[in-house]
């Protein structure tokens, strides 16, 4: 330690706070000038913290599960009755679905339908909700030798939740569909209209840019559209609900703030390239191609 007089020490102590203010402003500028660097640092930090998060979460997860159990015990009888009714109904639907699947199979055989390739996907645990007040994103843990790439699609048990934006060695960030910067082309299944699903940091992303003459219908299903080459078509997202007259939103099948386990799908968008056509003039940058269509068996929803 360098010997300093008391006056100098006090003076230096007074300088610390202003200096830190300057550092904070410098970091802000750095974030604007070198976003790549900041992202790299963040990924390193999340990579190291991902196992730590799991440690913090585990005891509370157990406690939470126990409390949930206690709560559920109170409603067992009523729930049991409701489940029995629902089961009866579902069994009926199961037979209908099996009949339709059989019919579909025979029709496809007659048409010499080329089957969709089974997609590779991985299932991971959500270890942290890294949403800030103005951003919505989650962090998942991965193996050391994973094959997750930015741009891949993240689904929960029922539908789309987001896209992979950054990938580290042991973790990946997923930007949720309700983030303020998320814009996803979607298709409404009943009215057959295209629209854009825009996140606004609330739980339910809004529907915008739908056709004037085809307003979304309350309760109709929303799936992704392959426009813009960002996502494959046909991934279920949720259903339409009007929170106010003239303000349709998409309600995801599962709430976006309680994601526990998600699946990351590799749709192999890079591999689909149109075959060479001699003499055909192709614009240099923009390839006119259509993403694959997500059929139920691609998503792993098929029975048996």
């Amino acid at each position, binding site marked *: 330690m360098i010997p300093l007089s008391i006056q100098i020490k006090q003076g230096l102590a007074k300088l610390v706070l202003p200096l830190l203010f300057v550092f904070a402003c410098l970091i802000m500028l750095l974030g604007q000038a070198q976003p790549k660097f900041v992202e790299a640092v*963040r990924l390193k930090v999340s990579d190291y913290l991902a196992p730590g998060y799991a440690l913090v979460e585990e005891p509370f997860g157990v406690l939470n599960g126990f409390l949930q159990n206690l709560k559920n015990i109170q409603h067992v009888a009523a729930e049991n009755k409701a489940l029995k009714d629902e089961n009866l109904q579902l069994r009926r639907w199961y037979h209908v679905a099996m009949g339709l699947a059989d019919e579909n199979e025979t029709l496809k055989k007659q048409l010499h339908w080329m089957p969709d390739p089974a997609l590779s996907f991985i299932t991971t645990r959500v270890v942290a909700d890294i949403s800030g*007040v103005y951003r919505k994103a989650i962090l998942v843990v991965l193996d050391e030798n994973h094959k997750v790439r930015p741009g891949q699609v993240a689904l929960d048990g029922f539908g789309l939740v987001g896209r992979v934006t950054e990938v580290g060695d042991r973790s990946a960030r997923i930007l949720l569909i309700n983030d303020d910067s998320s814009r996803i082309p979607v298709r409404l299944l009943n009215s057959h209209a295209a629209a854009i699903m825009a996140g606004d940091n609330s739980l339910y992303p809004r529907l915008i840019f739908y056709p004037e003459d085809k307003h979304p219908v309350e309760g109709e299903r929303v799936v992704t559209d392959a426009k813009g080459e960002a996502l494959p078509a046909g991934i279920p997202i949720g259903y339409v609900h009007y929170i106010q007259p003239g303000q349709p939103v998409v309600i995801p099948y599962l709430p976006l703030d309680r994601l526990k386990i998600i699946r990351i799908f590799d749709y192999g968008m890079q591999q689909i390239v149109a075959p060479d056509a001699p003499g055909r003039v192709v614009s240099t940058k923009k390839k006119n191609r259509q993403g694959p269509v997500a059929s139920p068996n691609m998503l792993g929803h098929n029975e048996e």
Partner: protein
Amino acid sequence: MITKKDHSQKDSHIRKPGIRPSRTKFQWIDIWVRSLVPMGFTVFVILFLSTPLDIPGRNELLPAVVMASVYFWAIYRPKSMPAIGVFCLGLLIDLLNFSIPGIVILLLLIIYGVGVTQRFRLARYNFVLVWLVFSFISLGVFLLQWALTSAFSLKLMPFYSFLFEIIFAIGFYPLLSIIFTWAHRTIADPDQV
């Protein structure tokens, strides 16, 4: 030896002159742990509120609790909440978050600066006035956060989150203040070794 009765006395933290036996190793560890309580608590809150548990309003709660913690300890025990520590807390939040880096650091430093420069005045005020001052600062600070985030992302950010942050910060301060005051007198007081 400090008895329980002495704790309640206002000047119990002032060490009286006199000869006492030198401290053992464990006592030094005890002092060290006690002085780490404020920072440790805040870091734990940051990590805990990042886990995906069913806590309503988690994202808005995190800045509110951290601000309250920084403000309280800046006034009552700045030695346990040094400026560098506040900077590191902000850096941790910024690195774990997806938002624009640096903004949270700036906000925490502002609130810390106000707390630490006005601490002798604020510590004399009664609780309601300290709370009122905190409410005003947090209003200004969160408004600044909203403005800076909007400016850097070149669009107007939704206003709801900002309102929730404010409500949480102001509403949670009394509760946290009770916990912190208790900790300040007991587990976070290095003079009680």
